[in-house]
């Protein structure tokens, strides 16, 4: 886990007198007081090369005097080092919008969830809730089930007079629900109208593939300015995480980015294994199975992206071809894990069950034919002049934009930044398999399309090597870790009993849509104290308003599809 070493910051320490560096195996943190925060961040960004913004949030300690501890996670792409900057605050923070635009959206979320005020923020509005919502839900003093203040009986009762007693006795009092006026105010606060017409694109629109509400300020066909209202799919996963046991939270990870459930499960499981420091206890077979399954899931998710992307640009048949292959993948995953979409197959310490008979033969048969199919679609699309006209030189993201907007995953690789967690911080079996990272150069929609196609081929290579390794292993090789002494470290297959010592960690996995990171702060016990989830597609989406300036609405679809956002992961 390449965290920055303490000695690198010696020169910084004498420049900032209040700075102290805390180095742990799971995390390297710089503690600074609020006044000098912006200078430190600027120094880290310009002089020390920590250009890529990863995440920013706040931990709430209701009993301590400066109540909130804010943390900023930065990454140095060239020397592959990560650092966390921490500071204490009562509720006021300087905005880092000038340093990183991604900070603007992260700060909106902190304001929405914790009520932290940011001076210098251009338009501080709530990220997910509606403007007229009075509470700050993620604070510790906000109850898990919320304040049930509104009388909202279920329709079955009102219209048909069912008596819903017994197990299904839903209480009639309900937490506040947004009315049309609330949404009206949210829309007005979000975008000041400058041009002719404000076109509402969303929240329910076939083109957005998810409940994102885009506001386009149109001048004729040209978009003058654009902004996004999120939160239609906000289920408060981070609040739930604080009330679920470590193993049981696995179920919520595959509901976030519902198209790559296995990759998100793997990321969560690896994060907790690193926190418990039992990565070498996990048997090799379990690591190979988890890697192979998450690569299958990556192809699965890229196929859905390709299908809907071609569908939006008019090539309806590619949608059906991509879903034909996706159906095969779903069959394989269903045969191995038992579920098609919400797969909670990995466990902290291994996987739930061994591979069934015939699994490796089926995967080999699939791998043999898939590159041929990919080649066929490329002949239909890649060098088609209409496809080129719609995609080349559209929505160009430069290298600086990648750092400024905190972009990760295929979106960053499309612009030439080779940022891939599987190579930079290999987890599970990624260090034993060799594969390439596809990188584009211009950073337009066409490069991201080529990068994702190449990524599918690389996944095929990884799966091949995993299948070869798994075939050599004996049939009864263990697939779940035996803890050295069960009294001290109980590793159950089901959901109960896992005790995690004090500590905090930030670990991330490479999802098909970007880096899915988990910042886990645990104060011992069975439940985490605070889990901040770093959503890959939310920060990829925050570059969308900049890409859409001065473009035609018809491009809105192509650029959005190239960023490939999934609303479950954005709204959490």
């Amino acid at each position, binding site marked *: 886990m390449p965290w920055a070493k303490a000695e690198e910051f010696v020169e910084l320490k004498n420049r900032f007198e209040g700075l102290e560096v805390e180095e742990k195996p799971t995390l390297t943190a710089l503690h600074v007081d609020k006044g000098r925060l912006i200078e430190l961040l600027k120094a880290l960004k310009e002089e020390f090369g920590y250009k890529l913004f990863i995440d920013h949030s706040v931990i709430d300690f209701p009993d301590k005097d400066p109540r909130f501890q804010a943390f900023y996670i930065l990454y140095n792409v060239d020397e592959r080092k990560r650092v966390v900057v921490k500071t204490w605050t009562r509720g006021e923070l300087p905005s880092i919008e000038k340093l990183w635009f991604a900070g603007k959206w992260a700060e909106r979320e902190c304001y929405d969830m914790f009520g932290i005020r940011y001076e210098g923020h251009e338009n501080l509005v709530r990220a997910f809730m509606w403007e007229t919502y009075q509470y700050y839900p993620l604070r510790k003093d906000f109850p898990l089930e919320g304040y049930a203040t509104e009388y909202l009986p279920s329709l079955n009762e009102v219209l048909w007079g069912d008596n819903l007693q017994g*197990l299904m006795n839903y209480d009639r009092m309900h937490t506040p629900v947004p009315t049309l006026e609330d949404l009206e105010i949210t829309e007005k606060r979000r975008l000041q109208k400058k041009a002719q017409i404000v076109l509402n694109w969303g929240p329910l629109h076939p083109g957005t593939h998810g409940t994102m509400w885009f506001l386009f300020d149109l001048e004729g066909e040209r978009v003058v300015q654009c902004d996004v209202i999120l939160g239609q799919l906000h289920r408060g996963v981070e609040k739930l995480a604080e009330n679920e046991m470590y193993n049981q939270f*696995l*179920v919520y990870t595959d509901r976030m980015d519902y198209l790559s459930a296995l990759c998100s499960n793997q990321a969560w499981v690896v994060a907790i294994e690193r926190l418990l420091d039992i990565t070498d206890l996990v048997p090799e077979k379990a690591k190979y199975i988890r890697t192979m399954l998450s690569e299958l899931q990556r192809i699965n998710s890229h196929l859905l992206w390709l299908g809907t992307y071609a569908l939006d640009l008019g090539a309806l048949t590619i949608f059906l071809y991509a879903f*034909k292959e996706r159906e*095969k993948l779903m069959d394989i995953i269903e*045969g191995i894990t038992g579920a098609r979409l919400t797969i909670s197959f990995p466990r902290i310490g291994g996987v739930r069950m061994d591979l069934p008979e*015939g699994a490796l033969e089926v995967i080999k048969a699939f791998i043999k*034919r898939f590159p041929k199919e990919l080649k066929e679609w490329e002949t239909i699309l890649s060098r088609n002049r209409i496809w080129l006209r719609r995609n080349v030189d559209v929505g160009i993201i430069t290298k600086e934009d990648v750092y400024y907007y905190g972009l990760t995953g295929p979106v960053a690789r499309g612009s030439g930044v080779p940022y891939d967690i599987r190579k930079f911080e290999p987890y599970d079996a990624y260090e034993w398999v060799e594969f390439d990272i596809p990188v584009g150069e211009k950073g337009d929609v066409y490069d991201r399309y080529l990068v994702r196609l*190449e990524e599918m081929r690389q996944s095929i290579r990884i799966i091949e090597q995993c299948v070869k390794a798994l075939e050599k292993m004996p049939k009864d090789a263990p697939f779940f870790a035996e803890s050295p002494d069960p009294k001290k470290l109980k590793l159950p297959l089901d959901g109960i009993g896992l005790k995690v010592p004090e500590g905090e960690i930030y670990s991330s996995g490479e999802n098909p849509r970007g880096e899915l990171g988990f910042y886990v702060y645990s104060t011992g016990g069975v439940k985490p104290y605070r889990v901040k989830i770093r959503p890959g597609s939310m920060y990829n989406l925050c570059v969308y308003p900049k890409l859409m300036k001065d473009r035609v609405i018809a491009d809105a679809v192509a650029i959005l599809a190239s960023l490939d956002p999934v609303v479950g992961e954005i709204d959490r």
Partner: protein
Amino acid sequence: MVKKVFEKPLSWLERILFLDFIRGLSITIRHAFRRTITTHYPYEKLTPPKRFRGFFGHKVVNGKEPQPAFDEWVERFKIKVEPGRSRCVVCMLCKRACPVPQLFEIEGEKLPDGRRRVSVFNMNMMLCTFCGFCVDACPVDCLFQSDIHETASYTRKDAVLNLELLERIGRDWQARREDEPDRIWIDDAQRQKLWYENDLKLPEVRR
């Protein structure tokens, strides 16, 4: 380690003679004359694999219990074992393992001869995430997930599995698929409709 992605641009000859369209069209016409791969759902149905995580069921006492564990738990909780009825020992482990414990409603009843028996076992399937933690937690392999996936219902009451329904699913499952080998799927004609182009031959099952 880093692979540049590149596609050569269209030459002017290709632009004049529309070669890119012709290549694309030739692929679609080839697909047009191949066999269709879809299963006609209400009339043809796919049989899910044995490991499918569908609706729950209670396995019935039929002598095939996991022996050392079953007797131990029966003794510890002094459960009255009746062949043909659910194996449940009312140990509440499934309720503790579940991320959403409110969906379980389990009560045991004291029989006159001092032993106990499960009387109420309701599962509200509208709250369930089908994650299977409870199946792993069950010490006597009583709770399991069958392959029933057509679970739509008109009222919320139908979404609740009571003990009698669970046992019925369990009996049907034990009769139908208990001794099937743990294969990835059953290689029937419906599967071949999709997989015929991969010329897939699953190895014969070693009984």
